[in-house]
């Protein structure tokens, strides 16, 4: 199943945030969206996921979702968005309760999602008892439970410390390895974008326009090799040179706002 951003524009009141943004996320593909602060990355993700109606243009799906997918477009949130009154298990089960799945199937799905994210031993814990990294794992397990076609990830690692970020990045790479699931990955972090994405959509400063779409010329498996690090770093530097001037302008704009 493909996800298509078709000339999406958006404004909040008199403020233009996005300007005719178009790109396609092919089935199983990981597309990162990067750009200066305030360029509308998160707004674009909300529009792609159907949580926000665009002022112009539209988000479209092409093709059938994978068999058994309960929620083809599934968000992983920056702030985890866990229900604090529910245990880990209940949080993961939350999106399944109102589906047609019977209790035994739901339990099996939850067990599988907890196992894949290493949370089986924490099923009875409450979010307040977990570290940031573990909370985000719960968010990922909840997303996996509905068997998404495309994960919509809004800076999923930005609230975490660097070690936890690294561990979760490894988890993302593992989960996306078989190409069964695609992702749109919004991030400020160019290193994350270069390590995870097949293509990187670079947005201009506000109103966000597609400035460039950069292909990463190696598979994710190849990127783990030591000799690939130099190439990845060069790519990262290229991306930074694309964004740098506008990032400075955007920061000054924020300071003067």
């Amino acid at each position, binding site marked *: 199943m493909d996800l298509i951003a078709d000339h999406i524009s958006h404004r909040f009141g008199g403020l233009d945030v996005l300007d005719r943004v178009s790109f396609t996320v092919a089935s199983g593909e990981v597309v990162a969206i990067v750009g200066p602060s305030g360029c509308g990355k998160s707004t674009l993700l909300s529009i792609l996921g159907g949580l926000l109606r665009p002022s112009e243009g539209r988000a479209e799906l092409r093709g059938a979702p994978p068999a058994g997918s309960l*929620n083809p477009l*599934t968000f992983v*949130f920056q702030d985890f*968005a866990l229900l604090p009154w*529910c245990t880990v298990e209940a949080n993961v089960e*939350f999106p399944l309760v*109102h589906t047609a799945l019977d209790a035994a199937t739901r339990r099996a799905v939850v067990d599988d999602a907890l196992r894949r994210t290493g949370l089986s031993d924490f099923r009875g814990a409450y979010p307040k008892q977990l570290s940031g990294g573990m909370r985000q794992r719960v968010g990922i397990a909840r997303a996996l439970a509905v068997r998404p076609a495309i994960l919509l990830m809004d800076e999923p690692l930005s609230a975490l410390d660097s070690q936890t970020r690294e561990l979760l990045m490894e988890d993302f790479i593992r989960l996306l390895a078989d190409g069964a699931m695609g992702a749109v990955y919004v991030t400020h972090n160019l290193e994350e974008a270069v390590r995870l994405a097949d293509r990187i959509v670079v947005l201009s400063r506000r109103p966000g326009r597609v400035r460039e779409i950069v292909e990463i010329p190696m598979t994710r498996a190849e990127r783990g090799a030591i000799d690939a690090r130099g190439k990845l770093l060069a790519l990262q530097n290229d991306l930074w040179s694309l964004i740098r001037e506008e990032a400075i302008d955007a920061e000054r704009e924020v300071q003067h706002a």
Partner: protein
Amino acid sequence: MLERAPQDDRATEARPVAFRGAGFVPGGGRASGWIALLLVIALWQLAGSAGWVNPLFLPAPSAIAVAIYKLAMSGALWQHISASVVRIGLGWLLGTVAGVIIGFAIGLSTLARGVGITFISALFPIPKIALLPLLILWLGIGEEPKIATIALGVFFSTAISVYSGVDAVPRNLIRMAQSFNVPFHAIVWRVIWPGALPSILAGFRITASVALLLVVSAEMIGAQFGIGAFVLQAGNLMQTDQLLAGVVILSLFGLAVGKAINVLEARLLHWR
């Protein structure tokens, strides 16, 4: 030749960094509270026994205890308490149910918010006891106007605490539920209700006090039985020991309700 300044010992000797982080961390202090209460009661008793205060104006705690005992033995205590409890119970329940429904409507619907907040802003400041004569006119002399007065007082506070609680539910949780296509009624039941519960229970604490205040006021205006009627009657007859017995019972009633809400909070909000 320049003389070298004598070497300062502080430059070479290691010394502990002074601790500056004390205070500003209030603890539980439950024992100190009980001790202070007992001390006040003991002092009060001493003042009564020693004849420092006129028992007509301030009877000793022992005299109040005797008055409560006599009231309990005669059966009058239960008659008054049960009359008040029934009024509070019915009034609180009616006001709470209506307040929760209207509060949720205001929290969830733009139209209900526009209409509801206007009416609540206009009617909330009115002392509800001032409406009792009107309610007697509408509902007749009996239990109904007293219960309605309590219900009105409870309703407004409950509605405000409920819609404030609904407003306080983090929007990201609602967006998360919507992103999983969770139906509206399930979002209300499984996200908004538990999210608003801390504010709703805090509202219960306030409305329990409001109900107590209004039942006493209403009973003082027009009732034969009830703690308010009993206190008024005792005051008219200068039976200050009985008057204060009524006040003590009201205080104990308030404490019991507060305790019940504590238990409810511990059970329902254990996740906080």
